[in-house]
């Protein structure tokens, strides 16, 4: 079977892509209007929602970049990925009920819709749409790039397929993604998420145990090897140090409530009661899928330190290298399909919310009807938005996938946590506070990131932007006149 390793991997990837196309065609029949396209008709069951939520968040940033980050920084990266389980809980208690009730009551089909209804302010809608589009292009570009890297490495190792350029691999993988998003909208997206989530869970468990078995002495052997090389790398805070790790924990735990591709899924559920199962299930699923990140990252660091595996040129390569060298061919095939799954499940969610912002929210914010047939234009815009993201991917910097992903995550967290996660719970929150918090946090995070500003001790830039955003949001709200809230909204906030 070893001789067919690459063919088996390619076969799994092809099966997976065909499955996505079939789901897209099936979902097209069920997509009849804009509410179906963006909100899945608000009919999703708890299992589908939970799987869609966890797989939307576990992106290429996690599955491709995560092992690389653990390999590079040791136990520091635990703080980033382990905080997300706490994040799911915070999201569940802050937003699970409120966002669903607000969504149904105000007939919102997107997050900017919801923000505009809550604050009765079109500038809030516009700023949130801009935040979403900016975040989506960057984040989606990163996902497409990660997907192309995996596809290219698969094809490179299969002798019977001619090698293709990175541009061609970007185009092939994006075509499948765009196809099922254009045809089936969010319905195709959530149902492929279920397939993708299941693949991710199975691969994570199998790979974790494979990784531990690869190193002599298992986890103890890994820990001892890392300790002997550098005690800090396997201490409480790893190579990054205390404050860097704690700032990661803060931004990733609180920031989950600001991820638009995740929280909009809570608006699609059949009813609020489902949250009882949805929130814990998505939290546990994410926790289990983290095992793949930890397993590969730690095992590869130990194998390289022991001289068993040659030192990789880039930390991002460790996941693919581990699968090619140490996993059973069938398992490698499943996991590589899982890597695709992780990337695609996030990318499709981004396409969906980005298109909603362009077709539905910006025209509303500026008071004009730009697109008469929203469903038709949503499909066209899906293609255009993907094309812009592909261009971004082709020309983006070569920073580590995980760190680029962290930047995208923080951009959303800083702009959306105060406005939505706090704002849907706090009657005193004002539109001015929300607008200032969003505008300042976006400006700040882009200034810190694009200006290449170095922050001492590796404090996360996103944490700074989110704290500034929160501080502004609270202080402006406290110092302004209490807002007049629609009596219905007021009653909903009391429920």
């Amino acid at each position, binding site marked *: 079977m070893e001789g067919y390793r690459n063919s088996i991997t390619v076969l799994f990837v092809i099966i997976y892509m065909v499955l996505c196309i079939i789901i897209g065609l099936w979902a097209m029949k069920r997509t009849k209007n804009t509410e179906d396209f963006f909100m899945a008709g608000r009919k999703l069951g708890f299992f589908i929602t939970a799987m869609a939520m966890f797989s939307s968040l576990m992106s290429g940033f996690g599955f491709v970049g995560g092992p690389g980050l653990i390999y590079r920084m040791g136990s520091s990266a635990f703080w980033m990925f382990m905080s997300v389980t706490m994040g799911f809980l915070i999201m569940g208690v802050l937003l699970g009920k409120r966002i669903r009730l607000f969504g149904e009551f105000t007939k919102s089909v997107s997050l900017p819709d919801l923000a505009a209804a809550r604050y009765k302010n079109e500038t809030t809608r516009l700023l949130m749409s801009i935040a979403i589009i900016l975040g989506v292009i960057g984040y989606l570009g990163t996902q497409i790039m990660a997907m192309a890297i995996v596809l290219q490495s698969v094809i490179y190792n299969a002798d019977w397929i001619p090698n293709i350029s990175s541009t061609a691999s970007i185009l092939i993988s994006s075509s499948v993604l765009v196809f099922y998003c254009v045809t089936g909208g969010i319905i195709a997206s959530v149902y492929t998420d279920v397939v993708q989530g299941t693949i991710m869970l199975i691969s994570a468990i199998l790979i974790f145990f494979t990784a531990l078995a690869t190193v002599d002495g298992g986890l103890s052997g890994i820990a001892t090897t890392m300790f002997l090389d550098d005690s800090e790398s396997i201490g409480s*805070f790893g190579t990054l140090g205390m404050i860097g790790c704690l700032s990661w924990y803060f931004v990733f735990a609180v920031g989950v409530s600001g991820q638009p591709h995740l929280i909009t899924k809570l608006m699609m559920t059949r009813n609020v009661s489902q949250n009882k199962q949805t929130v814990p299930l998505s939290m546990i699923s994410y926790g289990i899928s983290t095992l793949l990140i930890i397993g590969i990252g730690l095992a590869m660091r130990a194998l390289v330190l022991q001289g068993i595996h040659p030192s990789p040129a880039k930390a991002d390569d460790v996941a693919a290298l581990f699968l090619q060298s140490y996993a059973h061919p069938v398992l490698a095939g499943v996991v590589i399909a899982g890597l695709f799954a992780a990337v695609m499940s996030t990318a499709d969610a981004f396409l969906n919310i980005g298109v909603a912002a362009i077709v539905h929210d910006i025209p509303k914010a500026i008071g004009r009807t730009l697109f008469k047939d929203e469903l038709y234009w949503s499909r066209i815009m899906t293609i255009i938005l993907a094309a812009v993201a592909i261009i971004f991917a082709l020309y983006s910097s070569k920073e580590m996938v995980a760190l680029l992903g962290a930047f995208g995550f923080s951009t959303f967290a800083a702009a959306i946590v105060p406005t939505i996660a706090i704002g849907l719970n706090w009657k005193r929150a004002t539109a001015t506070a929300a607008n200032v918090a969003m505008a300042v946090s976006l400006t700040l995070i882009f200034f810190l990131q694009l200006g290449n500003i170095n922050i001492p001790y590796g404090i996360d830039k996103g944490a700074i932007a989110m704290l500034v955003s929160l501080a502004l949001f609270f202080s402006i709200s406290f110092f302004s006149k209490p807002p007049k809230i629609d009596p219905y909204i007021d009653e909903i906030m009391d429920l």
Partner: protein
Amino acid sequence: MPKLLSIISFFLLLIVGVFLFIEEQPNRSITDELGNTTTIYEGHGIIHDTHPSMLIGGPGKQRSRPIFFLASLFGILGFLFIITTIFYGMRTKSPARNPRKWLFYCSIVVVFTFFGVLYFYWNYINNIELVLFGSLPISASWVVYGIWFTPILFSLVYIFGFEQFIWNKNDEEQFKNLLKKKNKVDQ
């Protein structure tokens, strides 16, 4: 509670501000052939000597001791912020439906776990020796088995107290009535 959240955010921001003025340790100066001196700050990782794609932490005592208490304070306030958001999210108007008691117990476990992380990390950097617990150095095991797993406690309150604290049939009824009322007005 928003007042508490705002105070915590300000203090967290203040601590970050203080960190901007503390010189990162360890650091070293390099002088090139032209006599220009550059300082390289290595408090957040140093490139590995033989494997450049890897970072090492270097001397833990030198980099973590000077900032230990300030960083710990950031961590404690960060966890307080998180706990407060959970209390805030699960608040109800009726005192009989308030999960405060259970959330308080869970919060104590979270805070205790974080203090455990700090205590064992302090020991780890001061007496570098490998004591394994659950196949990991004891300081890392508090993070993995403690910090990672504590949200499960809160989620148990969420699952078992869902009907009592979060949402039940009466709430559903109230919402439906509200929706009907609004639809009538809209028509």
